[in-house]
Each structure stands twice: as C-alpha cells, then as structure tokens.
C-alpha cells in the first residue's frame, strides 16, 4: 500500500518529484566535491551522476530516454526537456554588460571566435574520423566539443537522435572535467598568470564550470577574468554552431 501511494505521488506530481530528485543529486555531488576540496567540480560531478543514472535506467528499461522512461521519474523528461533548458540558458545572459564585452577587447574577442571555431572543427573532424557521416550528427558532436550545452542545443535544433545528443553532452563533460584537472598543471607552460592571459584562456576553453574550477586551482584572483569571457562562449556557440557551423558541415558532408 505504501509503495502504491508513493508511486502514485511521483506519477501525479512528476515535475515536483524531478526537482526533488535533482536537488538530491546536487547535494550529494557538492558534498563529494567539498570533501575532495574542489567545490566547483560539484556541477560536473552532478552531471556525471545523472549520466550514470541514465545509463542504468536505459539498461533497465531498454528504451532511449534514460530515467524519463521509468514512470516514477517521468518528470525528468519535463524538467530536462528543451523548453525549460532553453528558457534557463537564455536567462544566464542577464547581467552581461556590453561594457565588459568591450573591456575584454581584441584578445578576448579573437579568443572567443577562435575558441568556438577550433573546438567545433576539432569535434567535427573527430566525429568524421570515427565514422559519423550525417551532417546533423557531425555538427552535434562538434557542438559538444564546444560545451555540454552547445551540443544538445545544436542537436535538438537540427533534430539529432538522443544517442548523438548524449554523446555530445559526454564530450562537453570530458572537456569540463579535463579543464579542471589539467589547468593547474599546464598553467606555467602557457603563462597563465595574468588577467589578459586569463581572459584569453576563458575565451578559448569556454566551459564556464571548467574554467572557473581550473582557475580556482591555479590562482583564485584570475577567476573573474576567465569567467568574463567564458560566459560569452556558450552563447556564441549556441548562436554559431547550429547556424553557420551546420551550414559549413552540410556543404562539406551533405
């Protein structure tokens, strides 16, 4: 009887249930991140946990929508769907000052354009090398190499399959986690020790959580400079990858 009531609640209040589950995932992830002294890795850990849960859910149901295919977790489909995702992403542009854009100046602008282009091209080339030949798939994986947001934004704009979208998220998560780990190691080699380099670094790498986490482990004073350019990166990627990026990919492989 008790399980029946609980199942009924999760089905009836699907979205609220999903919010509760995500809150639980987040508290565990940030707790884990705190114990290893890297609180900024919390979001990356949460995403990895979510991908892991989606993996087991997929194995269990044999279907394609991860946890959302289990009736009591169906709310995940709504909370993590493209409607709320795009709505929330757009809101993050609030607080961006045009003056800050200007302050980042020439190196910031060049690094942003080059950073998005470079990651997109590298991701696309690797997708092609590993046997993907549909322009939509190539552009989606290329977008994933930009960030774990740009991949799904590109993929859902172009109608990619959930499998390819999941790959693009995974590529973005690899980038984010790798950035946090190797930034402190590579910092002396690339002379990451002043505001200008930090802005260029933020613009080239662009994954906000990775950049903030990596700089926190390198030199905390550099965080705002790196984050300033990095915050434009996902927006620029969301603008360029599904449009110009896809058109170029389609022209080559279409």
């Amino acid at each position, binding site marked *: 009887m008790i399980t029946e009531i609980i199942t009924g609640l999760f089905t009836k209040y699907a979205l609220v249930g999903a919010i509760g589950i*995500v809150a639980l995932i*987040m508290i565990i992830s940030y707790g884990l991140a705190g114990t290893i002294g890297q609180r900024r890795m919390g979001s990356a850990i*949460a*995403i990895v946990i*979510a*991908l892991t849960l*989606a*993996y087991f859910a*997929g194995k269990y149901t044999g279907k*394609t*929508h991860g*946890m*959302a295919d289990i009736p009591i*977790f169906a709310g*995940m489909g709504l909370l*993590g*769907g493209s409607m*709320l*995702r*795009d709505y*929330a*992403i757009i*809101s*993050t*542009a*609030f607080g*961006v*000052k*045009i003056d800050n854009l200007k302050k980042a100046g*020439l*190196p910031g602008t060049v690094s942003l354009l080059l*950073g998005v282009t470079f*990651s997109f091209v*590298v991701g696309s080339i690797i997708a092609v090398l590993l046997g993907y030949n549909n322009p939509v798939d190539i552009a989606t994986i*290329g977008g*994933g*190499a930009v960030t*774990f947001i740009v991949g*799904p934004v590109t993929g859902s*704009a172009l109608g990619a399959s*959930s*499998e390819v979208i*999941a790959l693009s*998220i995974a590529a*973005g*998560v*690899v*980038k984010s986690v790798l*950035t946090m780990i*190797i930034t402190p190691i590579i910092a002396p080699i*690339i*002379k990451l020790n002043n505001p*200008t*380099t930090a802005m*260029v670094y933020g613009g*080239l790498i662009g994954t906000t959580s*990775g950049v903030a986490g990596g700089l926190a482990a390198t030199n905390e004073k550099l965080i705002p400079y790196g984050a300033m350019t990095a915050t434009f990166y996902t*927006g620029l990627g969301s603008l*360029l990858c*599904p449009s110009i990026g896809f058109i170029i990919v389609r022209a080559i492989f279409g």
Partner: protein
Amino acid sequence: MEIYGLGIVALCMFLGSFLGNALGKLLGISGNVGGVGMAMLFLVLLTNYYEGKGKAFSERTQKGILLLSSLYIPIIVAMAARQNVVAAFEGGVVAFAAGGVATVGSMFLVPLIAKLGSDEENKEEKNN
C-alpha cells in the same frame, strides 16, 4: 514583480526562436537555428538599453530572472539524466576524443592569442 522577469526572458525566447525558426525555414532545415543565442543577445541588449537610460529593472524583476538562471545547472543535470547514455557509451570513444583534443588543443592556443593582447598593449603604451 518576479513574474515580469520571467516574462522578459519568455519574450526574448519567443523573439529569438521566431527568428531562429524563420532562419531554419529559409535554410530548408526543420529547426530553430541559433534562436537561443539570438534570445540571449536580445536579453543583453534589452537590459543594457534600460540600464543605459537609468531605468534598470526593479530588484524583484531581477529576482525573477536570477531564479531562472540559478536553475540552469539543475536543469542541465535533469537533461543529462534523460539522455540515451547506453547508446552513447557504446560509441563513447568519440566523446573522449572530441572533448579531450578540443581541450588540450585550445590550451596551447592560449599563449598565441595572449601575445596578440600584449602586442596591442605595447602599441598603446608607445602611442601614449
């Protein structure tokens, strides 16, 4: 009021998505091409325009927008939980290769572009 903030973002989303879908139709792709990016651009332009006029959004309006942006990571977590990870895992090499090479490659571009910045600063110093 908080709902005004949510409404402003909604307006930007619809404007951007309208243009994105129109662009998609023009290009013969069924989809929203760059609509999210354009919506972000509208939000930046709108807020900067009002701030420039000295009429920044009220604190409660801002709270509405900030509530949404604070939900961004949790929503991404939910999004990750509903992906077809089983299939992705089977072809997972591409994720590691694409993410890894893009990261390491980008890192080594840093000193090249940073040089551009210091050249610029040097020029300015000389001009001064």
